[in-house]
């Protein structure tokens, strides 16, 4: 029972500083979170660098990189159209950064002493910033291209004149909710999966101390956690995809405006 008390499913989300750093009155210490962002950046850099051999007949790494870029290119082209091409780098950055960060959080690094995985995308201080960034780009592009006409986004075509104030209010609220839904969706999906795994992991450990019945619970928890990890791997990809996809859809509103 003593072991159970030690397991805190929320502890994995705590950020601890590695190298203290201050800029004016702001604390910008290099933290565990920043370290994992660095790892994500290095992995993405290495991955894309492998795709730059520029062979006419692609090798397996080049084919993989071309697959990812082609996937993002297609997503942007389908959702925004030819005018969306200039947003491809941003969408690509979002997609690969979120995908790699999600997957890094699932690495079983805790079996190595002194290491434990950290999921940068389980911090809403990060997902929220990305969501606000996407939302800001949508608003800037919208007003840049359409000026005040961009407000017509809140009045769908064919709305009866009587309904316009109501519809506009609803549309405005749903528009303003976008950054929250965008950032929270990713954050919640990640944190929920990790808490679930942590909790069932603790069930396995405490079950080992609970006799025959506890052993049964451990086995069941183990089977369940295998299933949850598989589901989480899927979730990592889906959440990265959804974040990038929704950003392209919002950008489509801003670029093409109905």
């Amino acid at each position: 029972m003593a072991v159970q008390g030690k397991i805190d499913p929320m502890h994995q989300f705590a950020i601890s500083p590695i190298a203290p750093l201050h800029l004016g009155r702001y604390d910008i210490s290099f933290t565990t979170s920043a370290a994992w962002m660095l790892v994500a950046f290095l992995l993405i850099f290495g991955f894309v660098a492998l795709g730059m051999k520029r062979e006419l007949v692609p090798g397996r790494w080049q084919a993989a990189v071309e697959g990812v870029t082609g996937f993002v290119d297609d997503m942007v082209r389908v959702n925004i159209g030819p005018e969306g091409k200039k947003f491809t780098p941003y969408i690509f950055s979002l997609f690969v950064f979120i995908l790699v960060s999600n997957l890094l959080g699932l690495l079983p690094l805790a079996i190595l002493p002194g290491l434990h995985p950290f999921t940068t995308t389980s911090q809403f201080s990060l997902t929220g910033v990305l969501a606000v960034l996407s939302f800001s780009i949508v608003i800037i592009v919208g007003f840049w291209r359409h000026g005040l006409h961009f407000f017509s986004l809140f009045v769908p075509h064919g709305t009866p004149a009587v309904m316009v104030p109501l519809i506009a209010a609803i549309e405005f609220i749903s528009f303003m909710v976008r950054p929250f839904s965008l950032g929270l969706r990713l954050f919640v999906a990640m944190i929920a999966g990790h808490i679930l795994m942590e909790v069932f992991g603790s069930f396995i450990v405490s079950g080992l101390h609970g006799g025959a019945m506890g052993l049964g619970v451990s086995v069941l928890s183990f089977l369940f956690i295998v299933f949850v990890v598989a589901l989480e791997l899927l979730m990592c990809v889906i959440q990265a995809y959804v974040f990038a996809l929704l950003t392209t859809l919002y950008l489509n509103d801003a670029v093409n405006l109905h």
Partner: protein
Amino acid sequence: MPQITQLAEVFASQLFWLAIFFGLIFFVIARGMLPKVRSTIDDPDAKVAEDLKQAQAARTGAEQTEAAWRERMDATRQDAARLAQEAKLASARETEARIKEALDEIDARVERARLRIRDAVASARVEMEVVATEAAQQMVQQLTGIKVDKKEASRAIEAQLAEVHLATPQRSEMPSKHIVS
């Protein structure tokens, strides 16, 4: 929940490092490296498209050359046919002319020969009449002792000959055997 309890103390750091690493991903990878990767994807497509275009151009060129060649061949063939036709016509005309010439000459010779024959026949007839008249005179004198005038004899001969003439008018111009005998 550390995300909330730590928010105030880590937010600046989170924002700062996210800006750095996401910025690096955006500027270095997405804007710096991706276009090269993409150009590698586009290159084979572009190359294939270029090759296809060249092949199409070559094909068009070949077709044009062939068309020109065919046109030239047709023209040449027509020229040849025309020349052959002309040559044929010329030679035909020449042959015709020569045949005509030859025929004319033959006709002329035949005519001359005919004239000669007629002359010969005429002179032969005259001679024959003279001979016949003399013979008739002598015959009558020897048989009857009557001396027949040469004129009379000749008249009788002529009448006789005219009778033969009437009997065989178509052969009048040719010397008749039985008349001679």
